[in-house]
């Protein structure tokens, strides 16, 4: 197999790699200082307390060292990044109101079509730093569901916002969470009233267009008691020769008896550092589910977490990672059991191809006083090429005697016999490999809404193109 050829083909197969001419209404600057932080706050006409939060977080960002574990982050040059890019003056209510280039982007991504077919209850589209399009189904609005971009939510629902903001992820949680808190812009704010069940997913679509862009969206989801919501996000970016940074913070509060499902299909181009902090607090009898698909990016470090705060709470992470040439997917999950009778499960499936590296990094912690806790973790890895790498780094820390914790992991290469069998049935080698990979990730893809499941399989097939031969 020729590596060069595979690389060429792979780049060619990233279907979202085009970029529009960057037109911004506010002249962006590279680099970060407290002036830039204040300027972002001023441009957004924010209340003073938020400006103070940002400035404090900026100091924390400066004081904190870069993480020296996980992946190699030495390629990030914080001085080269654009921290805030405003691409349109006004958020649009219909796709037609958007500037032509931006509308074109979302047309090519198929988002307006999905909305038309009512496959989604609401949609938010973020382009660079801000949400440019937003729409929520009328009946949900009537029930009191709030689905806004985070900037608007701060303006229109300041008390609700302030009550929950930074309650799950404090600004000083880690260096990148501090950075996000200092320069956050965009993201989704969702509030589901007590007892309301949103039957069809809410969707957000994140797009980086500009080279060296830093996207720092901030998402906050609050599910009041007994409510249900499924939120889906997708991410893409063009291919550039120098790197971009995506560093989001997602906080979720699942109040007693509620259920929140959060699905991500991350398909950034291979020059995006994707360093994301995602954490949920699940209270009594609440259920929090993270479905996390990582296909794109140069480096991803992301460990969706659930803090199980109330008796009977349940946490689940389903994680799929695919790393092709030069990619490192350092993904995983954390389950922190603070309360008794809580349970959690983690299923991780990773596929490494070419020189790709996938790492599962996880933590299951049972705190003192949390009785009868159960956790089960299963990590499976599939290696497609000789130079592919797979790591498993699970930590289990148990401070109570009546916990039941189990962890199983396996690493295997694609079976020669399986391939031979399929080929003897007349299946082409590439399709045979893709079939095996699809079968491998099936326990997770079947959990997705049908069109996302199809999309995930298609993305993986695209990424595998050129890997055989």
């Amino acid at each position: 197999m020729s590596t060069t050829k595979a690389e060429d083909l792979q780049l060619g197969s990233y279907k979202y790699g085009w970029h529009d001419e960057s037109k911004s209404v506010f002249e962006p600057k590279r680099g970060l200082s407290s002036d830039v932080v204040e300027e972002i706050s001023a441009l957004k006409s924010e209340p003073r307390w938020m400006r103070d939060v940002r400035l404090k977080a900026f100091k924390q960002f400066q004081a904190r060292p870069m993480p020296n574990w996980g992946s190699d982050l030495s390629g990030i040059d914080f001085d080269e990044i654009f921290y805030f890019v405003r691409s349109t003056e006004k958020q649009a209510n219909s796709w037609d109101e958007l500037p032509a280039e931006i509308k074109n982007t979302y047309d090519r991504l198929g988002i307006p079509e999905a909305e038309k077919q009512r496959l989604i209850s609401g949609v938010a589209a973020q382009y660079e730093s801000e949400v440019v399009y937003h729409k929520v189904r009328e009946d949900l609005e009537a029930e009191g569901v709030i689905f806004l971009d985070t900037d608007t939510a701060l303006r229109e629902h300041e008390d609700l916002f302030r009550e929950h903001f930074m309650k799950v992820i404090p600004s000083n949680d880690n260096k990148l969470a501090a950075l996000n808190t200092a320069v956050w812009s965009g993201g989704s704010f969702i509030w589901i009233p007590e007892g309301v069940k949103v039957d069809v997913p809410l969707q957000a679509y994140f797009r980086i267009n500009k080279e060296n862009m830093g996207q720092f969206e901030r998402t906050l989801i609050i599910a009041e008691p007994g409510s249900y919501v499924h939120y889906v996000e997708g991410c893409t970016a063009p291919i550039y020769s120098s790197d971009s940074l995506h560093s989001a913070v997602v906080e979720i509060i699942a109040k007693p008896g509620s259920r929140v499902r959060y699905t991500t299909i991350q398909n950034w181009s291979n020059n995006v550092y994707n360093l994301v902090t995602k954490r949920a607090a699940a209270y009594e009898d609440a259920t929090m589910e993270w479905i996390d698909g990582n296909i794109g990016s140069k480096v991803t470090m992301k460990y969706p977490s659930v803090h199980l705060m109330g008796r009977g709470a349940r946490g689940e992470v389903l994680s799929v990672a695919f790393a092709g040439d030069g990619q490192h997917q350092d993904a995983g999950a954390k389950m922190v059991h603070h309360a008794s009778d809580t349970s959690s499960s983690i299923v991780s499936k990773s596929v490494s191809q070419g020189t790709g590296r996938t790492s599962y990094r996880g933590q299951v912690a049972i705190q003192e006083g949390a009785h009868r806790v159960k956790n089960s973790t299963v990590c499976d890895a599939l290696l497609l090429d000789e130079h592919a790498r797979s790591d498993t780094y699970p930590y289990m820390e148990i401070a109570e005697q009546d916990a039941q914790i189990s962890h199983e992991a396996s690493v295997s290469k694609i079976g020669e016999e399986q391939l031979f069998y399929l080929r003897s049935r007349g299946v082409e080698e590439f399709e045979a490999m893709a079939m095996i990979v699809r079968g491998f990730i099936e326990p997770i893809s079947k959990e997705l809404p049908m069109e996302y499941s199809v999309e995930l399989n298609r993305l993986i097939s695209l990424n595998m193109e050129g890997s055989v031969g």
Partner: protein
Amino acid sequence: MATLDTLTEQHVIALSEARREPPWLLDRRLEAYKAFADLEWPDNRVEEWRYTDPRRFDLTRPLVDGGRIAVETAAQGVVTGDLAAAARTHEAVVRDALGTAVGLERKFAAANLAAFTESVFIYVPAEVELDEPVRVSVEAAADGAQPPRVLVVLGAHAKATVLLDHVGDADTTVIEVVEAVVREGARLQLVTTQHWGSRVDHLGAHTGRVGANAGYHHFEATLGGGTVYLTPDVELAEPGGNAELLGVYLTDDGRHVEHRSLIHHDASNTTSDSIYKGALQGDSFASWYGNIRIEPHAKATASDETNRNLILGSGARASSIPFLEILCSDVVRCGHHSSVGQMDELQLFYLESRGIPREQAVRMLVFGFFAEVTDRVGVPAVADGVLAELQRAIEGSYA
């Protein structure tokens, strides 16, 4: 009096001269001293010491000297003695093997090579198969610190069993290094038991370096000690090597036990299998960490590691950290399994409903739990003894 934390070059030279060691060994000690002096003392901010604060090992205790390590065997054809003597009588063997399994990357291991006085050398020449085990005992008999060192070398196609026991109950810090160098086609079974009293703190580096098509079987039973931090590592350095790492551990009130094992597949067609089982009682802590690392050139490897913890007492805390680092896709199989749980009330209920008294039911379940490990130890006398000790210790507190 000399202590490990204030070790000086003069002290190292003096102890080497007092033992009439050849110059090459003194050079090795000085090299180790330099590494020791250059390395920082680790603290619990580094990954290796995340669960055990290295300050638990009191290094201000004076180094004790003399008569605390012994070796005996009824077997024919094996060379046993102390390392200083062997450095003269079997220079080539010692020179080629010393420091090749446990290097100077860790501060404590470097200290041991610089300052060991108590030592045992066991050499089984090529083609020699021992029909009797070699017995080594390390004793903590006097208050202080001691850095015992054991070097086992098996020549090509040799076969031996070494039983290493640790006894004593003085206020002692033991900084131990056990190196096993197993040459091509040889087979070593190293069975080590820790019967320390609660005042002994034990930091032990046990590493096997496994040659082509050779076999290394390491079993350890950690039954005593205050703070115990053991690193049973294996270096599969040549094609076709096989390693089996087995262990059982038992904790009770006030004890802190950590096992940290690296199985390094650095050559093709190497295989490894590891299983560690522990029971935790009282207010105690046990941590098990295992890493299987498979290098890019190590093709067609197979490995598996298992850790099971039975928590029997409230207040006991456990952590279990099974790592895999697979840099080569050409693996035959690779996996790990880990669990933390309690004695199964359903199984107890079942046995009791069959008229078996609870005490005996507990004994049966503990027996079953640990027998999976001890059954794989090729020295029945030791395996049965360990199993009986485990059962006795657990019955007392659980039934």
